[in-house]
């Protein structure tokens, strides 16, 4: 199926574009799609899409990925987080730094 | 075996003029944060947004050593770079006058000249520079990397060629 993807801020340095429509299998998870994009666009893309932070001595990988306008990091919006499967009509956004409604 | 030593390499086109290097240098050497006590200097032209790094180039045949009448400034055997011995220095400022890079300094409080000593092998300026305008490395390896970057941006690579097939 066709999935529209939009890029913001530093992610565009890796993709060299603001948006595109990619071809994915229905039911692929957000995490798998991001991995596919990381393989296509390289390590800089990975660094900005899945942010590695250290806090209180622990390391976290926080996805800077939004599915249908909601950050996949917030469990009440996306309980399955990066394991959420995509379907027709979904929109993926990467590289935003603030939240939405 | 080519004898090599690591030196500081400057790229003023990347310099943002932040002077983190100066703050760190003076702190490390003098326990005080100041501009005049720093071994490295950033010249800022605020109106045009131009910045220039004035730092020691660790010359192979340093002029600052040859003009020192008193033997205070000598090439250190271990480090391979010119080091000023403050105990011998008379403060004549010949090195300050003759260094073509403006990298020899004079401390008005002590009356002695001082210069970059590469911080015991881990220079603060290179570590703290946010843009990589100052790097600490082997000049020949830096040059090889520069050529390789040029090859990537300007040369034609197999991957690109295959795309056209």
């Amino acid at each position, binding site marked *: 199926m066709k999935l529209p993807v939009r890029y913001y801020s530093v992610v565009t340095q890796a993709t060299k574009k603001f948006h595109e429509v990619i071809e994915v299998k229905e039911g692929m998870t957000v995490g798998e799609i991001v991995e596919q994009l990381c393989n296509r666009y390289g390590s800089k893309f990975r660094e900005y899409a899945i942010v590695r932070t*250290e806090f209180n001595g622990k390391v976290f990988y926080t996805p800077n990925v939004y599915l249908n306008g909601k950050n996949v990091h917030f469990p009440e919006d996306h309980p399955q987080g990066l394991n959420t499967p995509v379907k027709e009509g979904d929109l993926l956004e990467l590289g935003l*730094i603030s*939240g939405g409604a | 075996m080519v004898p090599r030593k690591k030196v500081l390499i400057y790229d003023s086109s990347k310099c943002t003029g932040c002077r983190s290097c100066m703050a760190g240098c003076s702190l490390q050497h003098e326990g*005080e944060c*100041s501009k005049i006590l720093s071994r490295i200097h950033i010249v*800022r032209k*605020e109106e045009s*947004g131009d910045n220039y790094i004035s730092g020691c180039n660790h010359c192979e045949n340093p002029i600052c050593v040859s003009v020192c009448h008193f033997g205070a400034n000598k090439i250190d055997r271990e480090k391979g770079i010119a080091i000023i011995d403050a105990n011998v220095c008379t403060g004549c400022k010949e090195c300050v006058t003759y260094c073509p890079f403006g990298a020899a300094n004079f401390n008005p409080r002590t009356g002695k000249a001082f210069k970059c000593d590469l911080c015991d092998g881990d220079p603060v300026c290179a570590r703290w520079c946010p843009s990589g305008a100052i790097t600490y490395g082997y000049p020949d390896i830096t040059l090889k990397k520069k050529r390789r970057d040029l090859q990537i941006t300007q040369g034609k690579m197999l991957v690109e060629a295959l795309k056209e097939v």
Partner: protein
Amino acid sequence: MYGWAGQRLRVDLTKGDIIKEPLDYEYRRKWLGGRGFNSEVIYREVPPEVDAFDPENRVCFGVGPISGTAAPSTGRVTVSCKSPLTDGHGDANMGGHWGAELKYAGYDQIVVQGRAKKPVYIWVDDDKVEIRDASRIWGKYPREADRIIKEELGDEDIHIVLIGPGGENMVRFACTLNDVYRAAGRTGTGGVMGSKNLKGIAVRGTGGVKIAKPKEFYEVCNRLREKFKTDPMRAGLWNYGSLCLINVANRDGWLPVNNFQFGAHPNANNFSGETHKATVSKGKEGCFACPICCGQFTVIKEGKWAGEYFGGPEYEHTVPTGPRVGIGLGDDANDVWHNARLTNDFGLDGIETGGVISWAMECYQRGLLTAKDTGGLELEWGNEEVVDKLIHQIAYRQGFGNILAEGSCKAAKKLGLPKEAEKYTITTRGMTLPGDDPRGLGFGYGLSFSMGTRGGEDHLRSLCCLELSGFLYPGLNTKVIGCEDPAKPTTTVGKPYMVYYEENQKASTDCLNVCCFTTHWSYAVLTEDQVEYLNTCTGLDFTVEEFQEIGERLTNLERAYWARHLSGKREDTLPDRFTKEPMPKTVPYQTNEGATVPLDRMLPTYYVYRDYDPETGFPSERKLKQLGLDYVAKDLKPYREKYKAMGRKAER
């Protein structure tokens, strides 16, 4: 002495006196420095009966114990005065290198009072201070005056604070700048300098800042600088400066378009950070000792403005004379950069300039103003010719610009416009909102806009980034507030406490005078780290609690200053646009359609945290005494009754 210089420089321009006042340990421990020293002076020395343009007003320049050191980002300066725009407490903050230079010259603060008979500038050459003739540079843009002063003094390595024609002409929102382009934008500090005939202050400092424990101080600084190399929030700022926000703001509906009537526009990418970098950017700039270096430099290469160049702009500088007045949304984005260049060269607050023009445009749109009032100018959204002309008129107080130079609230009164016109000023306490629509940016920001102590509408009083970037630091919101929910911008959960906490934190940060991008926005530097570098620098034993209490004390002092000007609970408002008008949707991926800010749900709880008196909104006596502000509690006694009486009268 470690950290501080321990000395205040006071210049009386009426008498021509130069006085050096020592700052004793008690004072430094209680107020810390920077904004703390400034607000303490303004509170004590500029009583309510003194008008902002009166010679008795002060303009203060404050730096702190950490200024000029190797800690991250230590070049900032707080500039404070009684504001000619709001008639209350005013201050602004600027980056650059002047702050470090002032410290090296041996001063923690400069206080200027009185009025010179002719234009002057102050030359601070370490301990030698002179008041010099400025007739050659009066009328000049900061970039020219900077060059001429450096030539005259024979040294290009000095740093200079300047005002532009806007300040000279006492525009109520004129700004001060250092290093040519670094602006302390808000509240009209430039106008106060202009009213004193003070063109600028040049500084040369050959001293340094002594560090009590150099090895330990170095360890902290090094550790923090390492963190910045991989910090998630640094990347956007490093690559695009604060303009990295344009596309984000557009998507989340907080980009002001046509005076906040809309929150987004399909063509916002015309002036985004990404576009700026690809078309007009020349290199990057960094303030003193900064690991982030978010400064931009713009060179316009094409079109009618080709050849113009300047340092900047920031997001907040681009937006008000850009989309907020409808500019940049068509074909030519260069209009946006040109307008930003104008406000820099004229020395005007870009935010207020765009704010007052967009107010006038909305009045024109709604028929409250006509071409007759504006001297024939058709105030249509996106009309660059008109915006360009108005910015010139404001700077030189000509034509319609002379009225706009008063700020939108005073202008509305001067023109005798109906009450409806006040709604479109988008102000609280007389100062306009920066380019952040709280219906999209977040409810925490919305609350802090209504409560800020430099004239309400200001994002920098709290820089409430726990809701903007908090999710990138897992566990941080839980640590500060108790749960991760507040990381979502459009929930009210935890926001009253978040704003209370961020305001105190930010106030203390402004006393050290380090850049808040290191501690709010990016959370690479936390309060514990700030206390650590403060202690290793000064050799003292501050705790996290004491450090945050300094910020709380400062907030209460500034709030009390407003109270003496009879501004309190009734003025803790947000414009109706944000609380009553639902956000319209203008781009397909906009996420905040229909949003409004539920201010009344957050305000009472915030008052409880602040311990403000629920009837007046003034700081309570109990809290003031707890913070060691007994003299303030005494001052406020008559004003409490007066404020309550005014309220009862209004109700009848």
